[in-house]
C-alpha cells in the first residue's frame, strides 16, 4: 500500500531548503483562518509548532496530558542546545554541524534533513533570546558556549543545568500569548487515544478528558504528533513517568510507518540503580564529561574491595586507576559520543571492574578539574603561592558555578558529596532515535498527519549527539513544519470545518471505548506496574546495550507471552468516568507491549552494529562496533498489517552524496 517517498528537494545540498521554501505552496492569511490544526504534545516540538502555527493564523487545538504545557518532558533537559553560530571562532559552521551530526548518527540519517537542521540552528538561538530565554553569558554580555560529546568545537548554548526548562518556558510563553488571543485552544489533562482518518487523510483525534474520563472527538484539517520518545518501554529510563508511545503507536496502527524502532540511546552518565523500588533513573548531564574524568580501578582486587566497602575511591592511587576512555580513545577521551561511552562502561563492569554494591557503576571524578580551576583562579586573582586546600576551595567554587544544581541533585539522591568523592554513574535508557517515519516535509505516510520532535525518526540516525534533541524539536516546530504544512493545507482552503458526526469518528470512538472497557472490566490479579517491570526487564536484558540473534528471538516470544498474560490478568482499579491514573498507565503499557516486539524485530533484522544499536555478531577484534554499509545503509520503515499478520519492512535507501562513509573512529 503506502510507498515511501522522501520528497527530498532537488539541487545542491546547501540550496535544497531555500529552494523548497520558494517553491512550495502557501496559504494566504485570510484562508488560514478557515483551517484547523491539531497539535498533540506541547513539549519543545509541539509547543513551538502550536505557537507558530497560531501566529500564522491557523486555528490550533493543542493537547497534553499534564496540567500545563510547561510540564512536558522537555522541561527536564539539562545540558544545552547546539547551534552553528561560531561565536567562539573555533571553526564551526553549518557544514561542520551537519557533518558531525551525520557522523555522530553513524551514517544512518538523511543528508538533506540533517543539513536543514544545521542551517536553521542559528536562528533558534536568535529566536529564543528575543523571547527572553536567559542563556548563560560571559562578563562582556555575550552568549557563552560549552562543548558536548562527540564534537571538537564549542557550540552548545546553555542556561546552567536547566536549558530544557528555559527553552520550554520560552515556547510556553509564546503559546500563552496565542492562548490569550484565542488562537490556540489548549486542552490540558487530555490524552489522545486514536487518530481518525477520512478518505485516507488525517482529520481528527479521539481524546480522553483525564479529569472526567469523557471520550471526546476533535476534528481538524491536519494532525501533528509531537508526543516525544518511547524510552519508557524499558520501564526504567531517564524519561518522565508519563512519557509514552501511545499517540505515535495508534497512528502507526492506522497506517503510518514506524522507522528504526530499535535505535535507542543509552546515556552513559546516569545515577546507578539502587534497588527494586526504583521508579525511574536520573540523568547527570553529559556536560559533566567536560570536566569529569571517568575511571574504574585498574586492579580487580581494588574494585572488589570497593564493592565490599573495604576501600574508598579516594584510597586508590592515581597509577592504580584506569581512565579507560582516555586510554582507549585518546583523541576524544571522556568526550566520546554516548553510545561509545556507554558500551565502554558496560565492558569494564562486565569484566569485573564495576564499583558500587551491584558492580554496575563507574566513577566520574572532578578532583582534577577542581584543582585545575583552582590554580587558574589563583593566578587570575593574583593570589601567588597559596595552599592546596585554598586552591581546592577556589576550584570548588568554579565547579559549583558551572554544575551546582547537578551536584545538589546527585547529593539529594545518593546522599554523597560529589565535591569530595567521585560520582558513581552507569548507562541508562535516555532517548529514542527511532519514531514515526516522515518525509522531508515531516509528513508521515498518512496524508495530513505530521510528526515532530523526538516522536519522529528524522535527524539523528543511529545515535543522537548531545544537545541536538532540543535543537531538532525547536527546528521542527518553529521553522520547518510551519512552512511545509502549508503546502498540504493549500488544498483545504475550501473544505470547511470537518464534522465530528461522520461515521469514521463514531467507529474509532467505539473502538477506543471498547478497549478501555476491556481494561477496566478485566479485574485480573496483577497491577499494571507488575507487567511494565517485566517488559522492561526483557527489553533491557535482550534488546538493550548489546543484542544478539538468540536473545532477540527469545525476546519476541517472551513479549508475546507477556502481552497475552497482560490482557488476561491485568488489574485496573476504579472507573472509566473519573480521574484514573492507573487506567492511563494501563493503556500506555498495553501499547509498549506491542512496540517492544517491533523493536526486537527491527534489531533482529539489522545484523550490523551502528550507533546505539550493537549486534554482538558484528564487532571487531577490539570489540568496536562494525557497520555494514553495503547491506544496511537504509532506514527500516515498518508497516503494520493488522494484528494477525504483524509488520512488514520497507527500506528507504540512504544516499550519501556529500559525505564519505567512514568508520566512525574517536581514537
Amino acid at each position, binding site marked *: 500500500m503506502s510507498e515511501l517517498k522522501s520528497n527530498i528537494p532537488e539541487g545542491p545540498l546547501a540550496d535544497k531548503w531555500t529552494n523548497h521554501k520558494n517553491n512550495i505552496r502557501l496559504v494566504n492569511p485570510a484562508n488560514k483562518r478557515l483551517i484547523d490544526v491539531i497539535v498533540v504534545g506541547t513539549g519543545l516540538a509541539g509547543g513551538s509548532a502550536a505557537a507558530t502555527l497560531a501566529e500564522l493564523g491557523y486555528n490550533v487545538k493543542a493537547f497534553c496530558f499534564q496540567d500545563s504545557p510547561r510540564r512536558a518532558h522537555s522541561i527536564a533537559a539539562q545540558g544545552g542546545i547546539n547551534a552553528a553560530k561560531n561565536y567562539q571562532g573555533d571553526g564551526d559552521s553549518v557544514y561542520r554541524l551537519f557533518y558531525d551530526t551525520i557522523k555522530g548518527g553513524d551514517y544512518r540519517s538523511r543528508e538533506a534533513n540533517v543539513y536543514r537542521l544545521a542551517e536553521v540552528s542559528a536562528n533558534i538561538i536568535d529566536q529564543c533570546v528575543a523571547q527572553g530565554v536567559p542563556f548563560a553569558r*560571559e562578563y562582556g554580555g555575550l552568549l557563552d558556549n560549552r562543548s558536548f560529546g562527540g564534537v571538537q568545537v564549542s557550540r552548545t548554548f546553555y*542556561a546552567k543545568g536547566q536549558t530544557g526548562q528555559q527553552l520550554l518556558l520560552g515556547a510556553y510563553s509564546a503559546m500563552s500569548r496565542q492562548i*490569550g488571543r484565542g488562537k490556540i485552544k489548549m486542552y490540558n489533562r487530555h490524552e489522545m487515544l486514536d487518530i481518525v482518518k477520512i478518505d485516507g487523510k488525517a482529520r481528527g483525534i479521539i481524546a480522553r478528558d483525564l479529569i472526567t474520563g469523557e471520550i471526546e472527538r476533535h476534528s481538524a484539517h491536519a494532525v501533528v504528533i509531537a508526543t516525544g520518545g518511547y524510552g519508557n518501554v524499558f520501564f526504567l529510563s531517564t524519561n518522565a513517568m508519563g512519557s509514552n508511545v501511545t499517540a505515535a503507536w495508534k497512528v502507526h496502527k492506522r497506517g503510518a510507518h514506524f522507522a528504526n524502532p530499535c535505535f535507542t540511546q543509552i546515556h552513559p552518565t546516569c545515577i546507578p540503580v539502587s534497588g527494586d523500588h526504583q*521508579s525511574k533513573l536520573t540523568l547527570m548531564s553529559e556536560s559533566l564529561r567536560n570536566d569529569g574524568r571517568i575511571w574504574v580501578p585498574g586492579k580487580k582486587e581494588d574494585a572488589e574491595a570497593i564493592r565490599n566497602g573495604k576501600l574508598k575511591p579516594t584510597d586508590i592511587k592515581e597509577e592504580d586507576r584506569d581512565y579507560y576512555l582516555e586510554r582507549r580513545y585518546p583523541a576524544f577521551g571522556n568526550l566520546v559520543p554516548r553510545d561509545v561511552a556507554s558500551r565502554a562502561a558496560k565492558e569494564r563492569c562486565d569484566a569485573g571492574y564495576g564499583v558500587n554494591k551491584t558492580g554496575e557503576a563507574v566513577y566520574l571524578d572532578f578532583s582534577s578539574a577542581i584543582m585545575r580551576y583552582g590554580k587558574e583562579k589563583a593566578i587570575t586573582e593574583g593570589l601567588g603561592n597559596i595552599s592546596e586546600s585554598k586552591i581546592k576551595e577556589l576550584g570548588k567554587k568554579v565547579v559549583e558555578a558551572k554544575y551546582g544544581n547537578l551536584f545538589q*541533585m546527585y547529593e539529594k539522591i545518593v*546522599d554523597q558529596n560529589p565535591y569530595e568523592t567521585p560520582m558513581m554513574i552507569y548507562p541508562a535508557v535516555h532517548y529514542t532515535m527511532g519514531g514515526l517515519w516522515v518525509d522531508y516535509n515531516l509528513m508521515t505516510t498518512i496524508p495530513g498527519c505530521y510528526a515532530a520532535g523526538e516522536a519522529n525518526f528524522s535527524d539523528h540516525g543511529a545515535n543522537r549527539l548531545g544537545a541536538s534533541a532540543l535543537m531538532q524539536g525547536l527546528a521542527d516546530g518553529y521553522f520547518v513544519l510551519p512552512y511545509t504544512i502549508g503546502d498540504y493545507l493549500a488544498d483545504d482552503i475550501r473544505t470547511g470545518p470537518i464534522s465530528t458526526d461522520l461515521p469514521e469518528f463514531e467507529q474509532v470512538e467505539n473502538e477506543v471505548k471498547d478497549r478501555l472497557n476491556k481494561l477496566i472490566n478485566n479485574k485480573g*490479579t496483577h497491577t499494571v506496574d507488575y507487567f511494565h517491570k517485566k517488559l522492561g526487564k526483557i527489553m533491557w536484558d535482550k534488546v538493550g546495550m548489546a543484542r544478539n540473534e538468540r536473545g532477540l528471538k527469545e525476546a519476541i516470544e517472551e513479549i508475546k507471552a507477556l502481552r497475552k498474560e497482560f490482557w488476561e490478568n491485568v488489574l485496573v482499579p476504579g472507573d472509566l468516568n473519573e480521574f484514573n491514573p492507573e487506567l492511563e498507565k494501563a493503556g500506555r503499557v498495553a501499547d509498549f507491549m506491542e512496540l517492544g516486539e517491533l523493536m526486537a524485530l527491527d534489531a533482529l533484522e539489522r545484523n550490523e552494529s551502528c550507533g546505539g544499536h550493537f549486534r554482538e555478531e558484528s564487532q571487531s577484534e577490539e570489540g568496536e562496533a562494525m557497520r555494514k554499509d553495503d547491506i544496511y545503509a537504509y532506514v527500516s520503515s515498518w508497516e503494520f498489517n493488522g494484528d494477525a499478520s504483524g509488520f512488514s519492512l520497507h527500506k528507504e535507501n540512504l544516499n550519501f552524496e556529500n559525505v564519505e562513509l567512514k568508520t566512525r573512529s574517536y581514537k
Partner: protein
Amino acid sequence: MNLTLKIWRQKNTTSQGKMVEYKVNNISEDMSFLEMMDILNEELIVKGDDPIAFDHDCREGICGMCSLYINGEAHGPDRGITTCQLHMRKFKDGDTIYIEPWRAKAFPVIKDLVVDRTSFERIMASGGFISVNTSGNTQDANNIPIPKDDADEAFDAATCIGCGACVATCKNSSAMLFVSAKVSQLALLPQGKLERERRVLNMVDQMDKEGFGNCTNTGACEVECPKGISLSNIARMNREYLRASLVKKD
C-alpha cells in the same frame, strides 16, 4: 522502616474529603517519597481498594507536577526540593506522616491529592510573555549584549517551576511569588522592558480575578519555594506595578 500515613481522600471536586489512615512497612531509606507512595498504591490495588491519586511526572524536581503538603509543609521537610526529590531517609521508623493536597481557593481539588492549577495558566496567558513572533526573523542573538549579572538574575527568577507551593504555604493563598518571578525575569531583560507596564498590570489583574489572596509579607513562600525564588522579586513587582500605574495615568 514502618510508617503510619494519614492521607486526604476526596473522590472529586464536589464531594467532601477526609483523612484516612494507612500503614506501610519495610520502607527503605533510599526510596523517594513518591516511591513509597507507589508501594502503598500497589498494595491498595491488589487489595481491591482505590489507589491514591497524586500528581507527578519528571520525578527530578523540574516539571512542577508533584504537589504534596507533608506534615504541614509544602513539599515536606527539607529545603530547596520538590516532593519527588524528598527521600525517606528524612523520616524515622514509626513516624506518622500527614499528607494533604495544596489548599487554596484558586486550586480546587480534583481528586485526593491532585489539584487544579489552571489559574496559573490564565495568569500566564494574560501577559507572561514577550510579544515577539516566532518567525526567526529577529536580530542576531549577540546584538543585544546583556550584563552577566542581569542575565543571571533573570535566570534565577526564571527557574520557577510553577508548582504552587508558595500559594499553598501562604496563609492568604497569595500567588505573588509565582507572578513576580515571571514579571521580574522579563523586566530584567532589555527585550522584555518594552512592554513591562502592560505585562505587570495584566498579570496582577488576572491574579486578583482568580481569587488569590493579598501578600502581607510574611515571607513563608520564599522558605518553602523549592527553587529558592527570592522575595526580592515581589519587591521588584511592586515597584513595577507602581511605576506602571503612574505611567498609565499620564
